[in-house]
C-alpha cells in the first residue's frame, strides 16, 4: 500500500491529447456509492480532515460541468433520453470536468475529491443494456484514480434513506426507464440490486475498496481516513498530524 503515493498517474485507455499523466502530482480520490449511501457526508468529513492538515482540495461530481451540466439536468426531467444518448451525455459532462477541473487541479498538487466517477456511469449504462466493452472504450479518456472507495449499503437501507432525505424515490435512481412492472419501491430495490451486482463485477477489474455504509458516519469516516492516509506521501504527512 505504501507505494501508492509514488505511483505515477495513467489513463485507462488512450487518454487525452496533449496531457502527460505523469506530470500530474496531485491526488484523485473517488467516493462511489448510490444516493443514500452517505457519500456527501463522507466527502465533507474527508475534506475537513484534509484541509485541517493544510491540503488544498477541490470537488467534482455528476452533472456539474459548465458545458452541459444544466442541460443534462433539464433533459433528465423529460425522461426521454435513450440509453446511448444518456451515456454519451454523461460522458461529455465528465470530460468537461476532467479537462477543466480535475487535470488543472492535479497539476497544481491539489487533492481532487470526486463525488462519484466513471464507475457509477458505467454501471448505469451496463444496467441499461449498453455494451460494457463500448463503455470502457468511451471512458478510455479517464484518469486512473489514486483510490476509489465504494460505500456499500443494501437497497432497503438506501430506500429508507432516500425516503428520509428526499421524501421519495427518484425516477432514474429507481431505474423506471428500464422496468416495465412493479411499483416505484420494487423497481428501486431491483434496480439497486442490479447496480450492486455490476459494481461487484467491476470491483475486481478496477480494484476499488468496499466500505460498509450501514454504520455511523464518524465510524465510516475514521475508516476512510485511515485508508486515505496511505495515498498521501509519508513525507508530506510528517508533522502535519497532531
Amino acid at each position, binding site marked *: 500500500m505504501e507505494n501508492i503515493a509514488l505511483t505515477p498517474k495513467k489513463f485507462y485507455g488512450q487518454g487525452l491529447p496533449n496531457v502527460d499523466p505523469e506530470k500530474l502530482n496531485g491526488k484523485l480520490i473517488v467516493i462511489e456509492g448510490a444516493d443514500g449511501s452517505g457519500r456527501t457526508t463522507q466527502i465533507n468529513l474527508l475534506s475537513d480532515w484534509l484541509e485541517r492538515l493544510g491540503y488544498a482540495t477541490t470537488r467534482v461530481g455528476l452533472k456539474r460541468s459548465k458545458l452541459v451540466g444544466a442541460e443534462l439536468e433539464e433533459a433528465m426531467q423529460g425522461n426521454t433520453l*435513450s440509453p*446511448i444518448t444518456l451515456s454519451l*451525455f454523461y460522458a461529455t459532462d465528465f470530460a468537461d470536468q476532467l479537462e477543466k477541473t480535475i487535470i488543472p487541479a492535479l497539476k497544481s498538487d491539489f487533492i481532487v475529491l470526486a463525488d462519484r466517477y466513471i464507475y457509477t456511469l458505467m454501471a448505469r449504462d451496463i444496467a441499461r443494456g449498453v455494451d460494457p466493452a463500448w463503455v470502457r472504450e468511451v471512458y478510455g479518456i479517464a484518469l486512473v484514480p489514486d483510490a476509489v472507495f465504494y460505500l456499500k449499503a443494501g437497497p432497503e437501507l438506501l430506500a429508507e434513506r432516500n425516503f428520509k432525505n428526499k421524501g421519495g424515490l427518484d425516477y432514474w435512481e429507481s431505474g423506471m426507464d428500464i422496468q416495465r412492472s412493479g411499483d416505484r419501491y420494487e423497481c428501486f430495490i431491483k434496480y439497486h440490486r442490479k447496480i450492486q451486482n455490476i459494481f461487484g463485477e467491476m470491483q475486481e477489474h478496477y480494484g476499488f475498496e468496499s466500505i460498509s455504509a450501514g454504520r455511523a458516519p464518524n465510524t465510516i469516516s475514521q475508516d476512510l481516513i485511515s485508508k486515505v492516509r496511505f495515498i498521501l506521501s509519508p513525507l508530506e504527512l510528517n508533522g502535519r498530524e497532531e
Partner: protein
Amino acid sequence: MTAKFVEGQELPGKLIAVEGLDGSGKSTQIHLVKRWLELEGYKVFFTEWNSSPLLRQSVKNGKREQLLTPTTFALIHCTDFADRYERQILPLLHAGYIVLADRYIFTAFARDAVRGCDRDWVKSLYSYAVHPHVTFFFDVPLEMALSRIMSGRAKLKHYEAGMDMGYSPDILQSFKTFQGKMREEYLRMTEEFGFIKIDVGRPPDQLQKEVRGHIQERIDLERYKWKTSR
C-alpha cells in the same frame, strides 16, 4: 428499451451518405437524389448533420463561449448525433426507408482526427451507429472549395475555421489549413471505409448521373416502392 448495437445488414432499410468539404456540392447532389427517389415513388427520408433539440443550447453556448476542447467537441457532437440516430435514423431503417444523410459519422471522424483526438477512440465512440450501405465522397480541389464558400457566405465561425487549433491568427488562413487537413482525412478514409469517390468540377447533372448509377448498382430499389398509392 434496448441498447444493443445493430448491424446494417440486419435492417430492412438502406442508408446512403454523402461526405466532403463545404463547397464540394454534396448537398446539391443528395438533394437531387432525394428528388429522384421521391418522384419515382420510393420510401425515402432525408436527414442532415445538425443539432438535435436536446443539446442545441449546450452546443451553442459551448461554441460561443469557446468552452470546447477537442475531446468535449467530439463527445458533445457524438451525444447530439446519438439522439438523432436513436430517434430518427435507426427507426427509419427499421421501417424500411432509404435514408439519405447529408454528412454522417465520417464528418466527425475527420474533424476530430484533425483536432488531435485518437482516431480509434473516436471510431469506438460511434460504434453504435450502422455504417452506410453507400457512402459518396465528393472530392473537390481545395482552392475550388474555398472560392465557392467565400463567395457564398458572410462570416466564418471560430470552430468551423479551426481557430481552436492555433494554426493562424488569421481566420481565413486558419480555415484553409483546417480544410486542407480535413481533405487529407477524407482521402485517408476513402480506402478504409470504401467510399465512392466522386471528382467534382463537372456540371451537376453529369455528377448526378454517375451518382444514380452507383445507387442503382448497389441497391435493389424496387424493394423500396411504397406499398400503398400516395
